[in-house]
């Protein structure tokens, strides 16, 4: 099981802040494919990956990052701190 977290408009579009997913996905991109196939709201949220960033276990990474051993994956738009 992996915890998946959504922030900002990704959270709003999917309608959830976090959920647990039982997945065998090998990479973040594979996980995104599984989520897209679920429902329209996921397909919409993940329609343009260039507009999204991903963190695995709270470290920024890429969509081709492996998920082996990962406990937490977060999807969000580019950050706007400061």
């Amino acid at each position: 099981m992996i915890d998946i977290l959504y922030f900002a408009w990704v959270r709003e579009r999917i309608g959830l802040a976090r959920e647990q997913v039982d997945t065998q996905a090998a990479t973040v991109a594979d996980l995104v494919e599984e989520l897209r196939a679920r429902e329209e709201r996921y397909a919409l949220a993940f329609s343009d990956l260039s507009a999204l960033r991903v963190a695995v276990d709270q470290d920024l990474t890429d969509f081709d990052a492996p998920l082996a051993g990962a406990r937490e994956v977060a999807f969000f738009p580019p950050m706007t701190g400061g």
Partner: protein
Amino acid sequence: MRIVVQENPFDLGAEANAFAAGRTDMGAIVTFSGVVRDDPAHPLRQMVIEHYPGMTEKALEKIAAEAQARWSLGDVLVIHRFGPMRPGEMIMMVATAAPHRRDAFEAAEYLMDYLKSRAPFWKKEQGAEGDAWVAAKDEDEDALTRW
């Protein structure tokens, strides 16, 4: 190094004084504070900042540690708020202490450039025309290339 992520307002003067107090070997203290800015053309009721608890602190610590590795600094302070705030309220501050001013200025700029696009905060503006997430700017990403 001190990293604070909090919902409540902070007192810039008190924080700057506490940060500077008791240092006899630091010739330069630089502070920067970011403020919620209203736009008369699009009046802002409030800004709401969302963040990623856990990752936020880790990301800020990493950015501050990198600044300490690159410049000769005595100390670094970062305070960043989340939650709702009104125009004129302070969102965040950084402070750097260094023996000489160039290190203090450059490190403060570095901290700002990185925490704008590498610390997991998201701003939403709420105004008369509705709510809108603030989009990241290409120039903020480009600013990282100079470091």
